[in-house]
């Protein structure tokens, strides 16, 4: 049942990723092209809407469909890069904590606890405030702030695997710690890593949108779902579509990724507790 949903979600995700990749070829208009005479045009199915602007236009006449398609690029790039960064940090530290134990474990886990008690949003806000908003800074902040969840899960798994016979055998054969960790333990942890990473992409996309929504993330006129939503908020009295569609894009993307992640978890390891 869940698997079926997962496949459907994967199909939706494929559409979103493809449209983001092929944005310059499939977008109906230039996302930055201003057309003041067609400003605040409603979606095509409403009264006064035109087929040229399927989802309508924003306050300075830019085509919303084109902007939503281009906005997906930003979200996906930040989501995937930040997750790769946090997965790398989190997995390495989790392996170290679980494998070596003792003082290494204590230090890493204290850091994990400190970061986990902090709301992710607050941390990201504070750091962005100091560093300033840019695409690179967003990736760094969201990537660095996200590692504790990987570290916690990987540590627990590593501690369990460390006691297994094949690790003992490896040690008896005189393998180095590095070889045991990366050749024997890490390959067993691929499933949880893939599952957490998938689900985290959704989290990062929502957070990035929120920062951009506040005006602390991707800066206009670059189209990102978050800043479109933020700009649209001002016009919601008469033109609800400007805020509605970018938000819908975030919602659908997050939902699809979550469904995919859940299905992936059931498929890879039904006993996994995440």
């Amino acid at each position, binding site marked *: 049942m869940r698997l079926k949903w997962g496949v459907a979600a994967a199909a939706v995700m494929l559409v979103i990723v493809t449209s983001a990749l092929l944005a310059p070829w499939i977008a109906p208009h230039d996302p930055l092209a201003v057309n003041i005479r067609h400003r605040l045009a409603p979606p095509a199915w409403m009264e006064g809407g035109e087929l040229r602007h399927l989802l309508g236009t924003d306050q300075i006449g830019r085509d919303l469909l084109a902007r939503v398609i281009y906005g997906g690029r930003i979200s996906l790039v930040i989501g995937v890069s930040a997750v790769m960064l946090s997965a790398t940090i989190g997995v390495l530290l989790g392996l170290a904590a679980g494998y070596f134990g003792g003082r290494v474990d204590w230090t890493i886990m204290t850091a994990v606890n*400190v970061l986990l008690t902090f709301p992710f949003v607050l941390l990201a806000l504070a750091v962005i405030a100091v560093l300033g908003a840019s695409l690179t800074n967003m990736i760094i902040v969201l990537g660095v702030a996200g590692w504790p969840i990987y570290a916690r899960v990987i540590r627990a798994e590593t501690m369990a695997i460390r006691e297994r016979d094949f690790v003992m055998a490896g040690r008896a054969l005189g393998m180095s710690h590095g070889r045991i960790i990366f050749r024997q333990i890490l390959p067993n942890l691929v499933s949880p890593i893939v599952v957490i990473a998938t689900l985290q992409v959704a989290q990062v996309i929502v957070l990035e949108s929120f920062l951009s929504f506040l005006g602390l993330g991707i800066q206009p006129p670059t189209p990102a779902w978050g800043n479109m939503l933020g700009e649209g908020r001002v016009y919601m009295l008469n033109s609800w579509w400007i805020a509605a569609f970018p938000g819908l894009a975030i919602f659908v993307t997050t939902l699809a990724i979550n469904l995919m992640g859940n299905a992936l978890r059931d498929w890879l390891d039904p006993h996994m507790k995440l």
Partner: protein
Amino acid sequence: MRRYIARQLVQLVVVIIGISILAFVILHVLGDPVLLLLPQNAGKEEFERYRKLLGLDQPIWFQYWKFASHAIQGDFGKSWYADTPAFGLVLERMPPTIYLTLAGFFVALLIALPLGILSALKQHSFVDNLCTGVAVAGQAMPIFWLGIMLIIIFAVRLRALPASGYGTWQHFVMPAFCLGAALAPITMRLVRSGVIEVMNMEYIKTARAKGVDERMVVVKHAFRNACIPVITVLGLQFGQLLGGAIITETVFAWPGVATLTVESIRNQDFPVVQCAVVLLALIIVTANVIVDLVVGLIDPRIRVST
């Protein structure tokens, strides 16, 4: 029990120290306060003078020590923008944030408890599938978008509720629902799985076997025991709840700490940002410790095992 409390308190202190280091590092290591304070065309001597004035020429550990020892007394320095102590500014905005958080928590329970229990008792029925489906969708819903859609529908179209602000109970309805809706899905799933697990226990079978009324079985025997995991996880979710409150506040222009933080970030008013971050983190950590203690009190197994 005493050892359990002691261990919790030690952990509390360690985490608080960690948070203060984090807050310090963010402002003093990642950013340079002088660069933020002075205009860009200020001369080199000007920079040096300010650096001395703020004590930035001293070794970093000494600066941290000064920051921490003042912070403990509630002195986070003066706001660069309003020229009043940052601590007072933040404290003033604390009540609305706390009320909103509590209201959101209450709404989440109001939605999640009945639906979670219902889903568990009627496992795999239509109702259960519907609830689970809504929960999955709800988890993917960005709070700030939900908030805006609520404003468009209830404030702009129906004119039933105020779009933003603070004061009367009407102002609470949308923000509290928004925040509650964000927390409800995970709570519902927890309640559901908690009740399902408990319903399969021996003591439930015993209660049924001795002829206890089914309603009593659910309320007295199952629900109470299902509460333990729910309380634990909800307590640990408190940070997330506060994070959600931060997002909700900015959407509804709620005059709480989060709105103040975002304003201060825009004004580059770092003492206020620092103070707000530390105080919010402090609340979360304290709440977590209280939850741990309460759970340890309810369920003796926990204080022995961890």
